[in-house]
């Protein structure tokens, strides 16, 4: 069935100046300005953000679930890849 809704936009909020933007959710809107306004009304009305980004959802390039293995397998069978494998030399403060 064809989607009769307006295009979908992903919303990113910046909680404070200098902090990274976080994905908050998504809104429907006919264009960028109204996407920004809808995002403000849905995700940033109670002081949750000092800045907003909206990005057309179609512009997001995402990894596929089938990529999970090759993309994200931490390689636990190769312990030397993890920093914990190495013993800190004497004299180095461990936090």
């Amino acid at each position, binding site marked *: 069935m064809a989607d009769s*809704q*307006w295009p979908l936009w992903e919303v990113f909020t910046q909680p404070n100046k200098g902090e990274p933007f976080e994905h908050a959710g998504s*809104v*429907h*809107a*006919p*264009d960028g*300005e*109204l996407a920004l*306004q*809808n995002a*403000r*009304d*849905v995700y940033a*009305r109670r002081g949750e953000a000092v800045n907003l980004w909206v990005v057309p959802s179609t512009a997001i390039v995402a990894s596929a679930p089938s990529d999970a293995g090759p993309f994200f397998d931490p390689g636990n069978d190769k312990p030397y890849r993890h920093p914990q494998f190495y013993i800190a030399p004497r004299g180095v403060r461990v936090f």
Partner: protein
Amino acid sequence: MTEPSFQVAAPRSTPVANPLFEYLLRLGDDRLVLGHRLSEWCGHGPILEEDIALSNMALDLIGHASSLLALAGEIEGQGRDADALAYFREAVTFRNALLVEIPNGDFAVTIVRQFLFDAYSVLLWDALSRCEHEGLAAIAAKSLKEDKYHLRHSSEWVVRLGDGTDESRARAQQALDTLWRFTGELFDHDAVDDAVAAEAFIAIDHDALHSLWLTMVKDVVQRATLTLPTDAAMRRGGRRGFHTESLGHMLATMQIVARSHPGASW
């Protein structure tokens, strides 16, 4: 839409018992009535996001009304608080302009009504935030910030409806033509304005306000590729309690819970 009844405003020389109270009622009632009208969209918005936007604006306006009516009650000194003024007055004692009580109609009527009011309200708050009445100046400064957002939302929508499809364009033009006759009243200047200027140092130059407002409205109407109505027959009366029949119906809905359960809290 029902043709509203209208009356010619009384001459400027009519004495007013408590002009500041009267002035605050005008400001408060405009926002209470428009806020309630917007709240009628809750659950009926054209899309979820716009439903939330309209409800947010309704809440903002009712918040402004609450501050204004609370201050009005203090000035009146009869022990009436914001709730008493909002829920236990009859239509004839409401002082809102006719524009804000006009029924929601379709989305275009709601948006154009909102835009015409927002442009006026932003300019008025800007002027009042610099007035010498401390309490009112504080309310004005806070409300100005929120109304600027309302204006951004409503004006962007006017542009999109006007410069949109044939259907949205026709509806937006129809809304502008229908509502235009209620805009003159916003800039009327009468005995109450004279009195608050003399007694409370709240002096608004309505002619200057009107010309700034026209410039703002023309700019958006032009961007929306709509035509500014030239109809000069303005309807007025709200400021003196002569309302359209739709206000009574709206108040009946708005006031019934408070009147059925007086003093209830929840």
